[in-house]
C-alpha cells in the first residue's frame, strides 16, 4: 500500500513539475494581473489617469450611479445604463440570430455523406479561425455608405441617397452575428453528429409530425450543444470590442468600448477596473450555467 501511494505522490509531483512553466507564464500574464485589476477597482482615480492609493468604493458605485456636479447627490447614470442595455440586447439578439441560422446549417452539415461532410465542416472552420478584424472589415465594406449594398442599390436606381447603416446598432448586430456564427455552428454540429438518426424514423413510424419530431426528439437531445453554442456566442458578444468599434463608431459603444474609454479619455481607472470585474463575474456565471448543463447532458439516457 505504501509503495503504491508513494508511486502516486511521485506521479503527482511529476505532473506539477511538468506543468509548472506553463502555470508560471499563465499566472504572470493572464491570471495574476486580474488580481491587480480587482485591487485597482477599490482605489481612487488619479487626476491624469492611473490611480491614487486610498480605499474607495466610488469605482463600483460608478458603474450604476453618477454624482451630480452641482449638489453632489448620487443618481442613476442613464448613459451607463444605455450602454449596458445595448450590450445585453445586442448580445442576446446575436445569440438568437446565430441560433436561427446556425441550427439549420449544423443540421445540414451533419446529415451530409461523410466525405462531403468533412468539406462543409472545413468551410465553416475557415471563417472560425480567420482574423476577426478582417471579417469585421469585410462586413464594414458591405454596409458602408459607399459600400457594396448602397453602390448596388444606387446603380440599380432603387435609391437616391445611400441608406445609412454604418455606425448604428443594426450594423453592430449584423457584424456580431456574422463573426460569431461559426461559434454557434460548431458545438451544434458536434451535438447533432452524435444524435442517432434512427430515433427520427422511430418518431415518424409512430405518426409524429415533423414539428413534433423536431420539438420532442431532436431539440431535447441536442440541448447541450444549444447551451454550448449560446454561451460561446453570448460571452464574446458581451465583451466585444473590435466589432462595435469598427461598425458602431464612437456613439454606439458596448461594455468593452466603455471600459477602454475609462483608461483613455475618461481617465477613471477604478471605474474601468470595476467594470472589467463586473463583466468577468457575469461571464463566470454564464460559464457555470454551461458547465452544469454540459455535465447534465453527458449522462447517457437511453
Amino acid at each position: 500500500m505504501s509503495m503504491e501511494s508513494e508511486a502516486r505522490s511521485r506521479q503527482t509531483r511529476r505532473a506539477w513539475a511538468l506543468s509548472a512553466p506553463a502555470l508560471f507564464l499563465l499566472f504572470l500574464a493572464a491570471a495574476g494581473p486580474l488580481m491587480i485589476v480587482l485591487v485597482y477597482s477599490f482605489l481612487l482615480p488619479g487626476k491624469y489617469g492611473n490611480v491614487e492609493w486610498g480605499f474607495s468604493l466610488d469605482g463600483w458605485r460608478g458603474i450604476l450611479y453618477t454624482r451630480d456636479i452641482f449638489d453632489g447627490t448620487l443618481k442613476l447614470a442613464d448613459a451607463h445604463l444605455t450602454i449596458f442595455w445595448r450590450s445585453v440586447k445586442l448580445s442576446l439578439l446575436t445569440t438568437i440570430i446565430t441560433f436561427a441560422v446556425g441550427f439549420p446549417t449544423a443540421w445540414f452539415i451533419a446529415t451530409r455523406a461523410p466525405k462531403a461532410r468533412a468539406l462543409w465542416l472545413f468551410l465553416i472552420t475557415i471563417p472560425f479561425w480567420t482574423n476577426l478584424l478582417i471579417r469585421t472589415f469585410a462586413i464594414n465594406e458591405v454596409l458602408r455608405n459607399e459600400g457594396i449594398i448602397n453602390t448596388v442599390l444606387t446603380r440599380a436606381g432603387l435609391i437616391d441617397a445611400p441608406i445609412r447603416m454604418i455606425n448604428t446598432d443594426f450594423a453592430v448586430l449584423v457584424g456580431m452575428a456574422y463573426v460569431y456564427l461559426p461559434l454557434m455552428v460548431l458545438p451544434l454540429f458536434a451535438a447533432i453528429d452524435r444524435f442517432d438518426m434512427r430515433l427520427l424514423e422511430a418518431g415518424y413510424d409512430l405518426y409524429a409530425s415533423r414539428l413534433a419530431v423536431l420539438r420532442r426528439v431532436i431539440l431535447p437531445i441536442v440541448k447541450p450543444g444549444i447551451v454550448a453554442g449560446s454561451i460561446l456566442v453570448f460571452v464574446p458578444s458581451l465583451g466585444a470590442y473590435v466589432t462595435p468599434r469598427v461598425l458602431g463608431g464612437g456613439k454606439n459603444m458596448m461594455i468593452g468600448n466603455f471600459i477602454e474609454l475609462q483608461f483613455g479619455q475618461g481617465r477613471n481607472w477604478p471605474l474601468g477596473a470595476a467594470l472589467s470585474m463586473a463583466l468577468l463575474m457575469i461571464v463566470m456565471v454564464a460559464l457555470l450555467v454551461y458547465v452544469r448543463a454540459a455535465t447534465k447532458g453527458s449522462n447517457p439516457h437511453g
Partner: protein
Amino acid sequence: MADRNFSATRIPGFAAIAIAAFVILYLPIFTLVIYAFNAGQSIAVWEGVSLHWFARAWDNEAVKSATLRSLVIAVSASAIATSVATMAALGTTRRPNFRGQTFIYVMINQPLMVPEIVTAVALLIFFGVVKQATGYQGLGYLILAHTAFCIPFAYLPIRARLEGMDLSLETAAADLYASDWQTFRYVTLPLLFPGIIAGAMLAFVISLDDVVITEFVKAGGQDTLPTYMLGQMRRAITPEVNAISTGLLALTVVLLTAFFLLTRKKG
C-alpha cells in the same frame, strides 16, 4: 411510405438556410479579396485588375515593420507556448487523477474563458507598473502576453494526440532498459510530433490575429499588422487594407489546411 423521396433526416427549408449561411459567410470575404486587386481608389467601385495595392502595401515602411513585428511576436510566442504546453500535456495526461488536476486545467484554459478586453486592461495596468519599475520598453511584454493566451491553443491538440496514444510502446521501451530520457526522445516525442506541430500552428495563427490585447499592451511605435489595420480603418480606407487582409487570409488558410491534414484521423 407514400412519399418516395421521404428522408427522415431532411427538414424542409434547412438546406436552403444552410446554403444561404455559407454564401453570406463567404461573400464579404471574397469581395474583400477581389477589391484588393482593384486598380482604382475605391473599395466598392471596380476599375480593373491591378496589383497596385499589393505593391503599395509592400513598399509601405509602416506595413513592413508591422509585418516583421507580427512575425517576431508570433514565432516567439508560439515557440514558447508550444514548449511549455507540451510539458504540461505530458504531465497531465495518461495518468490517474491527481490532486490539483482541476486547478491545472482551469489555469491552462483560463485565457479561453476570460473576456479579452478584461485581460487586456489587466495587462495594461500590470505592465505599466513593471515598465515604471524596470524602465524596459521592448517587445518582451507583447511576447509574454501572446505566449500566455497561446498556451491553451497549443495545449489542446497536443493533449488530444497524447490521449490517443496508449502507454504500451513506452512500457516496451522501458522493459528494454531504455532510460526515461531515451524513451521520451525516441518513442514518445516522434509519436507526439504531429500534435506538437498542430498546436504550434494554432498558437501561431492565434498570435498573428490578435487585436485587443496587443492594442492595449503595445507601446508607441509597436504596431502589429492587425493593430495597424485597426488604426487605418479610422481613416479613409483604400484597397491597401484589402491587400494586407488578403495576405493575412492566405497565410491563415495555408496554415489551417496543413493543420487539418496533420490532425486528420486516419482509417
